[in-house]
């Protein structure tokens, strides 16, 4: 994992964090921009995925505009229960992110669901779960930025 990225890999990663062209042969187009053959590009992408550097290449939607509801939740869990609590959270396909953090609220997770009702249902179920001391929901009231592209 610590093997350094080649100059070409960095160019590929920086390009792929921008939009994939909506054209019949998108990889060929990107390969052309990078002055390499399509086969070489696909080969490097496959390697970067295998090394765990690229998680996936996919569309990201604005959940709200697709009619979905997203939120953030935090839970207070006794240290000895944290693994079990994390598993209970992960069980829900609506949970997209889940992290342990060093804080009184030590389990933080994000949810995206087709309805507010579904989110409330999940939060209420977790509140009743004895592994959780407290669960709070922290819905967004304003979005200032989402830009996960990082120059590598």
């Amino acid at each position, binding site marked *: *994992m610590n093997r350094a*990225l080649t100059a070409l890999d960095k160019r590929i*990663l920086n390009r*792929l*964090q*921008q*939009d*994939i062209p*909506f054209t*019949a042969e*998108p*990889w*060929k187009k990107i390969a052309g921009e990078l002055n390499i053959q*399509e086969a070489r590009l696909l080969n490097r*992408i*496959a390697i970067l995925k295998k090394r*765990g*550097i*690229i*998680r*996936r*290449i*996919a*569309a*990201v*939607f*604005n959940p709200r*505009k*697709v*009619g979905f509801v997203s939120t*953030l939740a*935090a839970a207070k869990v006794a240290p000895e229960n944290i693994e079990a609590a*994390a*598993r209970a*959270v*992960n069980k829900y396909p609506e949970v*997209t*992110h889940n*992290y*342990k*953090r*060093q*804080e009184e*609220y030590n389990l*933080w*997770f994000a949810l995206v669901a087709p309805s507010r009702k579904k989110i409330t249902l999940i939060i209420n179920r977790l509140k009743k779960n004895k592994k959780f001391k407290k669960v*709070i929901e*922290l*819905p*967004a*009231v*304003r*979005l*200032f*930025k989402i*830009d*996960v*592209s*990082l120059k*590598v």
Partner: protein
Amino acid sequence: MLSPLDKKIISLVSKDMLLSSRPFKVMAGKAGISEDKLLARLKSYKKSGMMRKFSAVLHHINAGFKHNAMCVWNVPEKSALNAGRIIAAFDYVSHCYQRKRRADWKYNLYAMVHGKTRAECIKAAKKISGKIGFPDCKILFSSKEYKKTGVKYG
């Protein structure tokens, strides 16, 4: 409202894209439409802002950004809009939201701060605190990732 076809397309393109020369043709086949129609739909989703991006999601840790911290600030409501804009302008901030406060959780501005080291993240958070003029800040490093995935739209 979204049509059943839109829902099908959104579900298909939210999954990891095929590394073959005509990936959209394969997706279109699964949706039962032509490649051209799929491409036209994708362009319209992007144009309307419904689709934020269609791109690679990196594993930041493996890409060299080994550390990230969720930083939270307690900012008076009337200053939150301005402070949020200032925070969002920093390059090393990927996400920035204002969120509802709770009785035992007074923080209302949230930012994901990325850095090559832990110290870099702490330095960045302190710099932001200085810039917004509200020093009541907590830096929450993640000590374990239990899940990170895309949204399942069906």
